[in-house]
């Protein structure tokens, strides 16, 4: 693998680590699969592209986060206040977001911002740094990591975690689980939207179809991370998400360097992820076999 390809994989790994953070919050902490992300990722990209186009790349990312947060809240309100099953609520928001995203992009399926000033070129201009993408993405990921690591130890953060663990118990302690879910989903989708916003500025274009399969990519990162680093604490969990996302990108970059037929890319990615997922199972099995030996003694 060349240096450029490795740097590229690292950049993508960090950019999509934010997406994986978002999915970590809904899927692991709140224990609810959230399909909103396929839409909120594009929403973030669309908002950031439109604002970058009009010369506001940094506010573009902040507004993207707010928009994503709103999308997440909509999904959570559907679940909590209207009793719509979680998966369906996610699908509904994601479906509706398709139109909203087109609206944001003024009816265009693709918003280019080639040659426009973005956050990366801003840093390049300000501080003559060669790896501006890597630097910015690393610090954003670090910042989000530190924030969530702190947040999920606060009273509010703990009540969100508890809601995911045992809703009935939390409700019995007179904590508003609905509010916990709404805040959790809001944060989750805000993070996903920031991921989309940064990816759009990195690729210098936003496209209505760029969110397809994001949930799968995020879950793959989560599970690979899980296989590498057991995530019992939030700190380790968040760390494993970053590792998972970077490893996933390196795996794709590696597969691309092979001379296998390009049409096999998906199959090989699937196999690689399957192997990564089965690692913890292998561990359990070896654990069992050790037990049996002990019993035999």
């Amino acid at each position, binding site marked *: 693998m*060349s240096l*450029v390809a490795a740097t590229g994989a690292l950049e993508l790994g960090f950019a999509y680590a934010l997406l994986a953070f978002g999915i970590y919050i809904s899927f692991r902490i709140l224990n609810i699969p959230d399909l909103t992300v396929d839409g909120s990722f594009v929403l973030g990209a669309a908002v950031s592209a439109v604002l970058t186009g009009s010369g506001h790349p940094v506010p573009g990312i902040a507004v993207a986060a707010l928009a994503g947060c709103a999308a997440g809240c909509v999904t959570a309100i559907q679940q909590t206040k209207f009793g719509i099953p979680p998966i369906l609520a996610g699908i509904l928001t994601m479906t509706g977001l398709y139109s909203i995203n087109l609206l944001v992009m003024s009816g265009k399926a693709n918003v280019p911002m080639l040659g426009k000033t973005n956050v990366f070129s801003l840093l390049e201009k300000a501080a003559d740094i060669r790896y501006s993408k890597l630097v910015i993405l690393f610090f954003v990921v670090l910042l989000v990591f530190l924030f969530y690591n702190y947040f999920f130890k606060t009273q509010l953060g703990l009540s969100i975690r508890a809601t995911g663990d045992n809703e009935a118990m939390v409700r019995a302690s007179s904590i508003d689980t609905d509010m916990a879910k709404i805040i959790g989903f809001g944060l989750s989708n805000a993070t996903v939207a920031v991921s989309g916003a940064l990816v759009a500025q990195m690729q210098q274009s936003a496209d209505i179809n760029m969110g397809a399969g994001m949930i799968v990519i995020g879950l793959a990162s989560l599970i690979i991370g899980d296989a590498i680093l057991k995530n019992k604490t939030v700190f380790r969990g968040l760390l494993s998400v970053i590792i998972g996302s970077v490893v996933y990108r390196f795996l794709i970059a590696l597969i*691309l360097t092979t001379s296998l037929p390009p049409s096999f*890319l998906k199959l090989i990615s699937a196999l690689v992820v399957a192997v990564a997922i089965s690692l913890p199972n*292998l561990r359990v099995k070896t654990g069992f076999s050790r037990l049996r030996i002990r019993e035999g003694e």
Partner: protein
Amino acid sequence: MKKLISVVMTTVLGVTLLAGCSPKQEQPQQPVEQPPKKITVGILQPMDHTSLNQIRDTVIAEIEAMGLGDQIEIDYKNANGDPSTMVSIASQFIGNNVGLIVPIGTNAAQTVAAATKDIPIVFAAVSYPVDAGLVTDLKKTDGNITGVTNAIAIDEIFNLAKTLTPDASKFGFVYNTGEVNAVSSIDRAKEYCDAHGLEYVDAVITNTGELQQTAQSLAGKVHAIFTPNDNMVASAMPVLAGEGIKAKLPVYVGADSMVKDGGFASVGIDYTILGKQVAQMVERILIDGEKISDNPVEVVAEYAKLINKTTADAIGVPVPEELLKEFIILE
């Protein structure tokens, strides 16, 4: 023990990563022994699709046919429909120092353009390169990008419609709102209709499953249907063609393949011609050393003119004698 295994597994994973790195680093040393050094052309295709595959196959075959097989090596990569993989492929091309990149389609071209300002790029099948932000003007290619567009001949299609079905004054536009090429084509079709006093209604889809109902909704409301070179409509063209026949509506289309799939008539893009033009441009820039700035964006040299006779008979539209010579008539 568990910890040990986890450490081992992690190491294995890490080592496989590194192992993957090392052979690639060694590889460039091996071909050095062979005297004629080939220049690599990276082809980036976003997904598998009839038209896109046709372009790719033609470009590869044409480079071979021009006798450049011993000078050019093709590195073809397909993102399998995953936009984030396109970025990985682009950085791999750049890292491998390819001599030129051929991205197929708008998104691929944008991804590559964002990734490199140095390596020459010859795009294939970007309908509206100015809208896509790739070039500032079709005639002015002052960056590292040029290529061949597949903008469809809106005027010619509507002229054809006027000849074949002179009474049609209200068109139904069937297209996918998520496809930039299709939406841009429709915008131009609307401009044309506004200028020529034709009416139109939008009938949009966001996935192929919606096509049947959308097409049915047009029955009795319009005199004819127009669909541009829309990949989504193209992939479910028999559905639209069937509904057109049921409602006795002529379906004018933007690509030759769509006439083959039952569409009524087209002055459309022949992707084989487009692919050949791309290959020739690659030769001029890479082998002859011409500058990008001397190679403005090209339009497809020749359009495919087709009429589907079976469909014509089914909807009861006669095909005039003079068109029989000029057009390819499909039975």
